C-alpha cells in the first residue's frame, strides 16, 4: 500500500443527494415541446382546411415537427455493402442466401428503418394520429364558458371517489399494510397468550401427575392402578404440551381477518348547471352556405360544451316566421325553412321554455344566436322589449353571430349594438368564411386573463 495513488481513490454514497431534479428540467422541456408541436400542428390544420370533415369517425392525423436530432445517413440501397458476422456453421465461399428470412433481425438494411416509417418528406415532419378527444382537447385549450356562477347545489348525479375508512375485503392494491400488521400483531398476541396460558395449565397438571408417580414409586408400587393412571394422564398431558408448543410455532402471521383495505365511497359532488339556447335563423334569406356556417359554429360549440361541461342542457330553437324547438341535435342541424323572419317568436318560445324548465335561480343561461341580420322592421319593438325584459337580465352570456356578411347596418346589428351598453354580457361577432370559425370561436370563449393569438 505504498502506492500514493491508492489513498486518493474513494467511495462516495450519493443516494441521498438532490440529483433527480436535474433531469426534471429536461423532461419538462421535452413535454412542453411535444405539446407545442401538436398545438401548432392543430392550429395549422384548422386554418388550412374546413373543419366540417372533423365530424367523421376515426383518428385525426396531424403533422408535427420532428422530435429528434437529424443525422446524415447513407442510403443502403444505393450500392453493395459488405459486413462480417460471427457463428458460421455450414457456409462456404460463394454461397447465396435468399434475403427473405435469411437473417434474424440484426442483418442488413437496418439503418434508420424504424425512423423512416413515421416520417413525411422534406423539412423534418412526423405524422401523428390523435384520437378525436385529444384533438378537441387541443382545439379547445384555454377556453371556458364565461360568467359561470354557482347557482344551485342541488343536482347530485356527479360522484367522486373518496376514501372513507377501511374494509375487510378489497382489491390487493388497496391493502393498507400498516393497519393489517397492527391487527395481525394484536391477534398474534392474544392467540399466543391463550396458548401459553393453556401450556402453563398443562405443565402444572403434568407436574401434579409426576408428583403422584414419584409418590407411588417412593412407595415401591410402580405397577399399582394409581401409578398406571398417573402415567396415562402424564402421557396425555405431554402430548397436549407438544401439540400446544407446535401450535405456538405455527400461528400464521396473517389471517384473512387481519387484512384491512382502504375503502372508497362515491360521494355526491355539487355541480353548477347550465343551459345553452341555440337560436338559428332558417328563413329564406339565409343561403345554404350561411346555414352551413352557422351549423358548423354550433357544432363546434356543442363539442366544446359537451367536452368541458357534462352538466349542460341544450335547447335548440330555429325560427323564421314561426319558431320551433328541435328535439334532437340531428333535427336541428338538418332542417331548413322558408319565409320571412320574426325573431320575437323565437324569444317568446325561449321565454316559455326557460320559465318552465330552467328557472333562472338554478341555471346559468347562455344564448347563441345566428342570423344573417335581417328581421322584419315591424318586429323591432317587440324584440327589444323581450330582450330587455326577459332574455338579457336572466342571461350570463348572449352571443350574436352574424353570418354571411359583415355589414354594420343590418337590423340586428344596430339593435344589439344599442343593447350592448346596458348589458355587457351581450357580444356581437361576424362570420363570413369557414376559416374564421376558430378565431371567432376562440374570441368568444377565451379564458379570462389568457391571451389568445
Amino acid at each position, binding site marked *: 500500500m505504498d*502506492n500514493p495513488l*491508492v489513498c486518493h481513490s*474513494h467511495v462516495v454514497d450519493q443516494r441521498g443527494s438532490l440529483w433527480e431534479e436535474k433531469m426534471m428540467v429536461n423532461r419538462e422541456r421535452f413535454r412542453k415541446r411535444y405539446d407545442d408541436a401538436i398545438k401548432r400542428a392543430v392550429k395549422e390544420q384548422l386554418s388550412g382546411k374546413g373543419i366540417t370533415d372533423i365530424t367523421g369517425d376515426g383518428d385525426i392525423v396531424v403533422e408535427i415537427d420532428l422530435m429528434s436530432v437529424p443525422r*446524415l445517413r447513407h442510403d443502403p440501397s*444505393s*450500392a453493395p455493402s459488405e*459486413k462480417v*458476422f460471427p457463428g458460421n456453421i455450414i457456409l462456404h465461399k460463394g454461397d447465396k*442466401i435468399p434475403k427473405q428470412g*435469411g437473417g434474424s433481425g440484426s442483418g442488413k438494411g437496418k439503418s434508420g428503418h424504424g425512423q423512416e416509417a413515421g416520417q413525411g418528406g422534406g423539412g423534418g415532419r412526423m405524422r401523428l394520429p390523435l384520437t378525436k378527444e385529444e384533438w378537441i382537447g387541443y382545439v379547445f385549450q384555454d377556453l371556458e364558458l364565461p360568467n359561470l356562477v354557482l347557482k344551485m347545489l342541488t343536482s347530485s348525479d356527479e360522484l367522486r371517489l373518496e376514501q372513507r375508512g377501511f374494509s375487510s375485503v378489497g382489491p390487493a392494491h388497496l391493502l393498507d399494510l400498516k393497519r393489517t400488521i397492527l391487527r395481525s400483531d394484536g391477534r398474534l398476541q392474544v392467540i399466543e397468550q391463550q396458548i401459553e396460558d393453556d401450556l402453563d395449565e398443562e405443565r402444572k397438571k403434568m407436574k401434579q401427575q409426576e408428583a403422584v408417580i414419584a409418590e407411588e414409586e417412593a412407595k415401591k408400587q410402580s405397577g399399582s392402578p394409581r401409578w398406571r393412571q398417573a402415567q396415562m394422564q402424564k402421557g396425555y398431558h405431554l402430548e397436549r404440551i407438544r401439540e400446544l408448543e407446535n401450535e405456538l410455532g405455527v400461528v400464521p402471521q396473517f389471517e384473512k381477518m387481519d387484512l384491512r383495505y382502504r375503502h372508497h365511497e362515491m360521494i355526491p359532488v355539487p355541480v353548477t348547471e347550465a343551459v345553452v339556447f341555440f337560436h338559428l335563423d332558417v328563413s329564406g334569406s339565409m343561403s345554404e352556405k350561411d346555414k352551413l356556417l352557422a351549423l358548423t359554429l354550433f357544432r363546434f360549440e356543442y363539442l366544446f360544451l359537451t367536452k368541458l361541461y357534462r352538466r349542460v342542457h341544450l335547447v335548440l330553437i330555429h325560427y323564421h316566421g314561426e319558431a320551433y324547438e328541435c328535439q334532437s341535435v340531428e333535427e336541428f342541424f338538418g332542417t331548413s325553412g322558408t319565409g320571412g323572419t320574426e325573431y320575437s317568436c323565437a324569444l317568446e318560445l325561449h321565454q316559455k321554455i326557460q320559465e318552465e324548465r330552467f328557472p333562472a335561480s338554478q341555471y346559468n343561461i347562455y344564448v347563441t344566436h345566428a342570423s344573417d341580420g335581417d328581421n322584419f322592421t315591424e318586429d323591432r319593438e317587440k324584440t327589444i322589449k323581450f330582450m330587455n325584459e326577459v332574455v338579457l337580465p336572466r342571461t350570463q352570456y348572449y352571443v350574436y353571430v352574424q353570418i354571411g356578411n359583415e355589414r354594420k347596418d343590418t337590423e340586428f346589428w344596430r339593435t344589439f349594438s344599442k343593447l350592448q351598453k346596458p348589458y355587457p354580457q351581450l357580444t356581437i361577432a361576424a362570420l363570413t368564411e369557414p376559416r374564421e370559425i376558430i378565431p371567432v370561436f376562440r374570441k368568444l370563449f377565451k379564458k379570462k386573463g389568457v391571451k389568445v393569438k
Partner: protein
Amino acid sequence: MKKFERPIYEGEEWTPALLQRFLEISEEIAVEKCGLDLYPNEVKIVTSKQMEDAMVTGALPLQLYHWFYGMQSYQIEATGSRGYLEIVQNTNPCQLYCAENNTATEMLVVIAHAGCGHNAVYKNNFLFRQFTNPKGIVDYLIFARDFLRKCEEKYGEERVSDLMTACMALGPYSVDLIRKPKPRSYDDELARLQKRVEQFERSFNPVFHDRSSSPLRGQNEIEIRIPESPDENILKFIEKQGPRLRVIEEWEAEVTRIFRKINEYFYPHTRTKVVHEGAACTLQRTVFNCLSPLELGAVSNSAMNNFFDVHARVTGQPGYRWRDKFEGKIPLWGINHYSLGFQLFQDIERICREPTDEDRAWFPDLIGANFWEVFRHIIAEHDDESFIQTYFSPKLIRDYAFFALEDDPEHDYFEVTDIHNEEGYRHVRDRLAHQYAYHAALPNLEVASVDIGSGCALTLRHTQHDRVHLDGNSVGEFLFIVHRNLWPRTMRIESVDAEGKVTDLWIANEGKVTNVVPR
C-alpha cells in the same frame, strides 16, 4: 501480495466499506501486477433512478438543458435500465457510478472493470490524451451550462435549443482530425470569451454589422477562397467564419464551440469501443483470478461462481464456439464489443505464453513477450481499427467462425464472400477492422467553399465511397435544421462521385430545402 486469511465478503450484501477495501485491492493488483498507470477513482453509489439520469448523457459528467435529453430520459424509463451496472466518465479523478441494486459481486466486478480497465484506457490512450481534458471537462461544462443559461435569458429558450439541435446534428463533423486542441480551465475560458467580446466591440462596424450585407461586398472580382482547402471540421469552420462573415453572431459561435468541445470529448470513445471493453473485461478477469481461492483467497468459491456468471453475461457472444443449433436459417448476429475485445486480449496472452507454429508465423513479435507490456502498448497506441487489423489471429477467426457477407441491392440474395479459412482470413480481418473505422458508417462531408460574392452561400461536399449515395430524407432534415439555425444564408450539399462529377445537389434557401437534379 499476502494471502488472505479469509474471504473479504460472504453472501451478496455489500457495504461502502467493502467497496473501499476492494477498490484499494484491485488498484494494487492493476498497478503492481499489470503495471498500469491510473487516475484516482471516485466510486459513486447511486440509486437506480439516478443511474437512469446518468445514462441519458452517457459518459458526459454534466447535463446540459435540452429537450432531447428529456426525450431520452423518457425512452430509458420506458425500456428500463436493468442490465446497466455502471457508468464511467473520463474525468480526473475518474468518476464511476454504480447502481445500488447491484449485488456485491457485481459491484466488485464493476470496480475492477471500470475503475481499473476503463480508467487505464482513459489515462493512457493516445486519442484520449490528444482530444480530451479530463481535469478540465467538468469545469468547462459548468462554464458551458452557465453560458447557455444566460443565452436563454437573452435570446429565448427556443432559439437556443434549436441552435443546440443544429450543433448536435453536426456532431460527427466537429472534430479536428489533425490538429491537437490545448486544454483550458474555467478561468481560461472566461478570459477567452471576454477577449472575443472585446475584439468584437473594437472591430464593430455598423456597415458590416447589418446582416444582409457582406463585409467583402464590392470585392467580387477578387478571387477569395474560404476555406483554402476542404475542411472536415464543419462546426469549427462555422464557428470561426460565421461571425467574420456576419452570418451568425458571436454568442451563436460560442454555442457551436461548446458542442465542438463536447464532441471532442466523445470522439475518442467512438473510436475505442473494442479496446476499452477488451481492456476492462481483461482487468476484471485478472483481478478476480488473483483474488480467487487458488491464489490470494480474498473471495470465496461461491463468489467466484457468481463472478463467472456476471463475466459470461458480459462477454457472451452468440456464435462463438457454438455449432450445434442450426435450424435451416442462417443467423446474423451482431458483434459484442466486450466479447471481441476480451477474446483478442486472451488470444494475445495465449500467443505470448504458448504459441503454436501458426502464431510464430503470424506474430513473431509477440512470441515470448511479456503480456502486460503488450497490453499497455495496445491500450496506449491503438484504436479499434488498428487493434483488430494488427492482432486479430487466425485462431480467433476460427473460434468466432466469422464470415463476410455481401449485400447487393440488385440481387435478391446475400453472397458469402469469405469464411473462416486460410484463404479468407485476411479479407475477413480487413472487413472486420473496417467495420470499426470511424468513417465506416459516417458519410464523408466537408466544407468545400463559401461563395463570398453572392451572400456567403456555403457549399458542403459529400464524396461517395464505393458508390454509396446519401439518403435523401436524412439530407433534407439535416440541411433544414443546420441552414435555419447555423447558416441562415443559402446552403448547398453536393454529392460527388469518384470522377468528381456532382450527382446529387440539395439547396436550402430561406427555410426551404429543394433537391435539384444537377446538369
